[in-house]
C-alpha cells in the first residue's frame, strides 16, 4: 500500500510540483510500535503536493506549523507551511502510513532566462550587390534540425555583371559555395563543400569541394580545393585534388588520431605535391583548464606542430609552434610554410594589475617571400581609482627579408585611459626607433568613445614620426587594393606582417602580391571616426557613418588615402532584413596620380522558419484534438484551427481536426477560442508534419470565494474545501486569513469542507456538505464558521463526606463535579472568568483568563 504520485493539478493555488516519495514510507499496523525512517519527503516552503495513498481517510502532521495535511478518498494533500521537519501520519481503515517530511527554505530567487528556443528549421535567402565589383551574389540556405539529425542545403551563386576584358575566359556565373549536409551525433555525410580544420600539418581551415563522410571517429574526404572562388561555374581551373582519411581513438580525456592526406595534382596556387602522414595527440583536462594538441608528420620532409593552452580564472597562456620546411607536402594557399612559434601569457586582475606578454618568431618560406620576423611585446595595465587605467609597455622586433640585412625596431608606449560607462578616452605616447634609421621618433594615439541613448561615437588619431611600415607590394589592381584597405589588411608593423601572412598567404600564392617591403616614413598619421545610431527597437535599425584617413609622408612623396562609408540596415518584421552602403575611397599621391572610386552595396535577406517539403504532397498529416480537461476530457466541437495562418479546419464532434498534404519542417498550429471558453493549454503550438496536437479549453468560470472563521472572527488557515460536481472535483485551501477563492464553471456543486484538514483545536462537527449552484457571471460568496475549542478543568480536593459544587460566576454556568472532585467547563467564549468552588458552604474563587484561540486550561484546582 505504498503511496504513488499523481500529477499536480493547475487549480491548486500556489506553487505545486510532484515530489519523489522515496522508500521512506513505513506502514504501521495496529500494535506495531516503531519505525526507523531513513529517507524523507522534501518540499519547498509554501509548496503543495497531492499523493495517492490508497484507502486513506485522514491524515495529520505532528507539527502543523511545518506542514498541514489532509486526506480524502485515497488522496493526500500536503501543504508546506514552515521550514522544519515533522512526520505525517496517513490513516487508513486498518493501517497508518508514516511519511517523514522536511520543508526546505525557498531557494534564492533566480532570474529566469526568458530565452525562446530559436527554431532549428529555417530557409534563408540572401541577395547582395556590390557596384565596384559589379557582382550580384545570391544564396539560399535550408536547415531542418532536430535532436537526432539535421540536414542542410546551401548554395551561393555569384553573377558578374560587368563587361569582361577581352581574353578573360572566366565564367560570368559561378558557385563559390555549395553544400548538402546530413548529420547525426554519430555520423555525417556532406556532398560538395566542407571546411576542413583537421590539423596543423594537414588541412587547417580549407574548403574542399567533393564528398565527406564521418562515422564515429572515421573521417574521409575526397575533392578539390582552390582559393579562386569565382573563376568557373562549378570547378576552378586552378584547383588541386585532396584525398584525406583519419581515425580518432578517444580514451577518457585524450585522443589519438592517425591521418593520411594526399595532394596528387600538380600545384596550381603554390604548395607541394605529395602526401602527409601524421599522428596527432589531443588532451583536454576535465575542466578545460589545459588543452594540448601535438602532431608529428612526414610529408617528404619532417614536420611537427604543437598547440598548448592553459587558462584559469585569472590567467591564460598559449603556445603555438609549427615547423613545415619548404618541400613539405601541402596545399597552396592554406598557410605559409616555414617555422613559426607564437606565445602569449595574459594575467588579468580584477583589482590592480593586468599583464600581457606576447612573442612571435617566424621564418616564412612561402611563394616569393623568404623572411624572418621576430617580435616580443610586454604590456602592463594598472587599475587606478575613478575608472582610470595606466598602461606601459615595450615591443622589440626584428625583420629580415632575404637578401637584405636584418632591421631591428623598438616601440615603447605609455598611456592613460578612462573607462567610463558611457564615455571612454585613451591617450598614449609612443616612442619608436629602428636600426635602419639609427634614430627614433615620437608618436601617440588619442582615442575616444561615447554613448548617449541610441548614438555611439568613436574615433582615434594616430601620429608617428619615423614610422616603420611594412606593406605588400600589390600588383596594379585597384579593386584589390581597395578591398584590402577595407578589410584592414594594411601591415604597419612587423607584428602585422606576421599576422597578415599567416592569415592571407593566398595573396602571395596567387600572385596578387609581388613581395613585402619595409618602408621608413618620416611621418605618418591615421585618423578614424565612426558615428552610429542604433535604437534598440524591434526593427534593429542601424545607421553608421565611418571615415578613415591615412597620410604617409616619405622623403619623396606624400600619400593620402581617404575612405568613407555610410550604411543603413533595418529589419522588416521577423523575416526580412535589408541593408545598403555607400562608399567612397580615394588615394592621392603628390607628384603622381589621384584615384577615387564610388561604390554602392545593397543586401536583402529573407528568413522563414520552415523548409519546403522534400516528400511528395499528401504523404504527411498534422492532426489533433481539442478537449476540456476540467470536464472529463470532453471533446470540444466546432472550434476553428489554423495551420500557418493560411489553412483552417473545424473540430468535429470528437473534437478532432486534421490537415493533409503538409510540407516538411515546422508548422504553426493555432486554435480560435470558442465562445465562453478559454485555453488552459498554449493556444498556439509548433509541430512538424506527422505531428499530433492537443489543445485544452475550459469554460469561462465564475468566482467563488469565502472565509473560514472561528467564533471570534479570526480566520482559520489550511482548511480544505472540495467543490464537487458530476464531472469534476476542485479542492481549495484557505490562506492565512482564512480566505479562499476559486473559479468554477457554471453548474451544480456540492461543497464539502474537509473536516480532516482542520487544524487542531477547532470544532468543525457542525459543518456538513451543502449544495451550491454556480451561475455564469454571478460571483458567489461563502462563509463558514468553526468555533475554537476552549475548556477549563480542575479538581476540588474534598474528603469523604464533603460535597462540592463548581460554577462560573459571570455566566452562572454550573459544572459537574465527580466523586474525585474533578470538573470541566467546555465551549467557553474568550473572556476573564471567576471560577467559584463551594465545599460544604465554604466558597473559594479563582480568576482565569480564557484566550481567544483554542485552549485547554487545566489544573484550576481548589484545596480542601
Amino acid at each position, binding site marked *: 500500500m505504498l503511496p504513488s504520485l499523481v500529477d499536480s493539478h493547475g487549480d491548486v493555488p500556489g506553487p505545486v510540483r510532484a515530489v519523489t516519495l522515496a522508500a521512506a514510507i513505513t506502514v*504501521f499496523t*495496529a*500494535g*506495531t*510500535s*516503531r*519505525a*526507523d*525512517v531513513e529517507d*524523507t519527503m522534501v518540499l519547498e516552503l509554501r509548496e503543495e503536493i497531492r499523493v495517492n495513498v490508497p484507502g486513506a*481517510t*485522514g491524515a*495529520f*502532521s*505532528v*507539527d*502543523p*506549523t511545518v506542514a*498541514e495535511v489532509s486526506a480524502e478518498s485515497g488522496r493526500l494533500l500536503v501543504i508546506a507551511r514552515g521550514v522544519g*521537519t515533522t*512526520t505525517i*501520519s496517513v*490513516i*487508513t*481503515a486498518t493501517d*497508518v502510513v*508514516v511519511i*517523514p517530511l522536511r520543508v526546505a527554505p525557498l531557494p534564492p530567487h533566480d532570474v529566469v532566462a526568458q530565452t525562446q528556443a530559436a527554431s532549428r528549421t529555417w530557409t534563408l535567402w540572401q541577395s547582395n550587390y556590390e557596384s565596384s565589383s559589379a557582382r550580384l551574389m545570391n544564396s539560399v540556405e535550408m536547415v531542418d534540425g532536430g535532436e537526432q539529425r539535421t540536414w542542410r542545403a546551401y548554395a551561393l551563386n555569384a553573377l558578374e555583371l560587368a563587361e569582361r576584358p577581352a581574353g578573360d575566359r572566366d565564367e560570368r556565373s559561378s558557385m563559390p559555395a555549395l553544400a548538402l549536409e546530413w548529420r547525426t551525433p554519430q555520423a555525417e555525410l556532406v556532398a560538395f563543400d566542407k571546411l576542413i580544420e583537421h590539423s596543423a600539418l594537414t588541412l587547417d581551415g580549407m574548403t574542399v569541394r567533393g564528398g565527406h563522410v564521418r562515422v564515429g571517429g572515421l573521417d574521409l574526404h575526397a575533392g578539390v580545393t582552390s582559393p579562386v572562388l569565382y573563376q568557373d561555374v562549378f570547378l576552378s581551373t586552378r584547383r588541386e585534388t585532396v584525398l584525406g582519411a583519419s581515425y580518432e581513438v578517444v580514451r577518457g580525456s585524450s585522443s589519438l588520431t592517425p591521418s593520411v592526406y594526399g595532394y596528387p595534382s600538380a600545384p596550381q596556387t603554390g604548395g607541394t605535391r605529395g602526401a602527409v602522414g601524421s599522428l596527432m595527440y589531443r588532451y583536454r583536462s576535465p575542466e578545460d583548464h589545459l588543452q594540448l594538441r601535438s602532431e608529428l608528420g612526414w610529408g617528404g620532409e619532417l614536420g611537427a606542430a604543437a598547440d598548448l593552452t592553459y587558462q584559469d580564472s585569472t590567467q591564460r597562456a598559449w603556445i603555438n609552434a609549427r615547423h613545415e620546411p619548404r618541400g613539405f607536402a601541402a596545399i597552396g594557399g592554406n598557410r605559409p610554410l616555414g617555422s613559426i612559434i607564437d606565445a602569449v601569457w595574459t594575467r588579468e586582475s580584477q583589482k590592480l594589475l593586468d599583464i600581457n606578454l606576447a612573442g612571435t618568431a617566424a621564418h616564412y618560406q612561402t611563394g616569393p617571400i623568404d623572411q624572418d620576423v621576430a617580435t616580443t611585446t610586454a604590456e602592463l595595465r594598472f587599475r587606478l581609482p575613478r575608472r582610470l587605467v595606466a598602461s606601459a609597455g615595450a615591443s622589440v622586433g626584428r625583420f629580415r627579408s632575404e637578401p637584405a640585412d636584418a632591421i631591428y625596431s623598438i616601440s615603447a608606449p605609455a598611456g592613460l585611459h578612462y573607462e567610463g560607462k558611457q564615455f571612454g578616452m585613451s591617450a598614449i605616447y609612443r616612442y619608436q626607433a629602428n636600426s635602419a634609421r639609427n634614430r627614433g621618433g615620437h608618436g601617440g594615439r588619442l582615442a575616444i568613445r561615447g554613448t548617449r541613448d541610441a548614438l555611439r561615437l568613436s574615433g582615434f588619431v594616430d601620429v608617428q614620426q619615423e614610422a616603420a611600415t611594412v606593406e605588400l607590394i600589390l600588383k596594379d589592381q585597384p579593386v584589390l587594393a581597395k578591398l584590402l584597405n577595407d578589410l584592414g589588411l594594411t601591415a604597419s608593423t612587423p607584428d602585422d606582417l606576421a599576422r597578415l601572412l599567416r592569415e592571407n598567404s593566398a595573396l602571395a600564392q596567387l600572385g596578387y602580391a609581388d613581395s613585402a617591403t619595409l618602408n621608413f616614413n618620416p611621418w605618418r598619421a591615421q585618423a578614424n571616426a565612426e558615428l552610429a545610431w542604433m535604437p534598440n527597437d524591434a526593427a534593429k535599425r542601424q545607421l553608421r557613418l565611418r571615415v578613415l584617413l591615412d597620410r604617409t609622408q616619405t622623403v619623396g612623396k606624400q600619400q593620402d588615402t581617404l575612405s568613407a562609408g555610410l550604411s543603413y540596415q533595418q529589419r522588416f518584421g521577423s523575416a526580412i532584413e535589408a541593408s545598403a552602403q555607400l562608399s567612397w575611397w580615394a588615394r592621392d599621391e603628390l607628384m603622381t596620380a589621384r584615384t577615387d572610386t564610388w561604390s554602392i552595396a545593397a543586401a536583402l535577406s529573407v528568413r522563414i522558419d520552415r523548409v519546403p517539403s522534400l516528400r511528395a504532397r499528401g504523404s504527411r498529416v498534422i492532426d489533433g484534438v481539442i478537449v476540456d480537461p476540467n470536464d472529463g476530457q470532453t471533446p470540444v466541437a466546432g472550434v476553428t484551427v489554423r495551420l500557418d495562418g493560411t489553412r483552417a479546419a473545424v473540430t468535429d464532434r470528437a473534437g478532432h481536426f486534421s490537415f493533409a498534404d503538409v510540407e516538411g519542417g515546422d508548422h504553426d498550429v493555432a486554435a480560435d477560442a470558442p465562445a465562453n471558453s478559454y485555453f488552459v493549454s498554449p493556444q498556439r503550438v509548433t509541430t512538424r508534419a506527422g505531428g499530433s496536437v492537443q489543445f485544452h479549453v475550459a469554460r469561462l468560470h465564475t468566482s467563488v470565494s469565502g472565509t473560514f472563521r*472561528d467564533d471570534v472572527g479570526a480566520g*482559520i*488557515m*489550511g482548511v480544505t474545501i472540495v467543490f464537487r460536481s458530476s464531472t469534476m472535483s476542485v479542492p481549495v485551501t484557505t490562506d492565512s486569513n482564512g480566505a479562499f477563492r476559486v473559479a468554477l464553471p457554471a453548474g451544480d456543486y456540492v461543497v464539502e469542507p474537509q*473536516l*480532516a484538514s482542520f*487544524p*487542531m*483545536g477547532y*470544532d468543525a*462537527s457542525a459543518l456538513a456538505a451543502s449544495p451550491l449552484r454556480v451561475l455564469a457571471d454571478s460571483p458567489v460568496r461563502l462563509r463558514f464558521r468553526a468555533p*475554537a*475549542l*476552549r*475548556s477549563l*478543568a480542575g479538581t476540588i480536593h474534598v474528603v469523604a463526606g464533603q460535597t462540592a459544587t463548581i460554577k462560573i460566576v459571570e455566566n452562572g454556568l454550573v*459544572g*459537574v463535579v*465527580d466523586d474525585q472532585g*474533578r*470538573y*470541566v467547563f*467546555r*465551549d467557553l467564549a474568550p473572556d476573564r472568568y471567576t471560577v467559584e468552588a463551594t465545599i460544604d458552604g465554604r466558597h473559594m474563587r479563582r480568576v482565569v483568563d480564557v*484566550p481567544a*484561540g*483554542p*485552549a*485547554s486550561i*487545566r*489544573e484550576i*484546582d481548589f484545596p480542601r
Partner: protein
Amino acid sequence: MKRFAIVAAIMLSAGAAAADGLSLSPAVVPLGGKPGQSTQQRLSLSNTTSQALGFKLVAEDVVVKDGERVFVAAGDERGSIAATAVFSQSTITVPPHEQRSVDVTITLPAKMTNRAIVVLFQGTTRINTGATVALGSLITFELAGRLSISPGELHIQVPTASTNALFTIPIANDGTEPAVVRGAAAILDDKGVIVGKIALEQRRLLPGERNVLRSDYPRTLASGSYRVVATVECFHRSWTRMATFQVP
C-alpha cells in the same frame, strides 16, 4: 495558523522561570559540543515590578535519579558541569522596570556524567509577601552519544461530564543525550473519519528521565466507538501508537 495552546499550571522546576513582573530569558539553552569546549551564554533578567530586586547567581547540576530530575550543588557530582560555571558577576540587582544581563562561561569537563545544569537567580530581596523568588535557566548539552527514547503505550481516559478525554504516552529517554519529544494524535469515529486532532505536549527529557506526553480533548464526544492514532517524533524518527475507546 493558530496553535492549540495548552495553558497548564506552569513551569517545570527547570523550565522558564517566571513570576509576577520578573522574567528570565532564555529559559532553555540547548547546546552541542565536545568535552573540553567552552561556551559563554548571556542570560537576561527583566524586572517589571516597582521595587529593585537583588539576586545571587548559582549554578547547579541537573541529574536524573529514578527517572526524575534532581538539582545537585556544583561539585557534588563527579564530572560536575556546574562546577566549571564562571559568572561575570556573582550578584546582580535589577532596578524596577529595567533589565540586566549576566554572562556565564561553562567548560565541559572531560568525564561528564550529566547533560544539564540550571543557572539559578536566587532572590535576596524580600517582596511584598515576605518571600524571595528564584528563577532558573536550563542549559543542556548534547554530545556524540547514543540517541534513544522509548515511548510506551497510548493510554486513554474516557471523557465524562466532568473530565475531558485525556491521552497519555509514557516516554523514557534511554539514551545518553537530551531529547525533545513531541507528538500529535487524531481521534477517528467508527467510520474512520477524523473528528478531532490534538497536539501532545512537547517534553524535554534528560538521559534516564521519564515523563508523559499528554493532551486532553476539550470537546464533548458523542456516544460511540473511537480510535486514536498518535505519532511521536524525536531525533527525526517517529513512533506510532493506536488505541480505541468507547464513550457511553
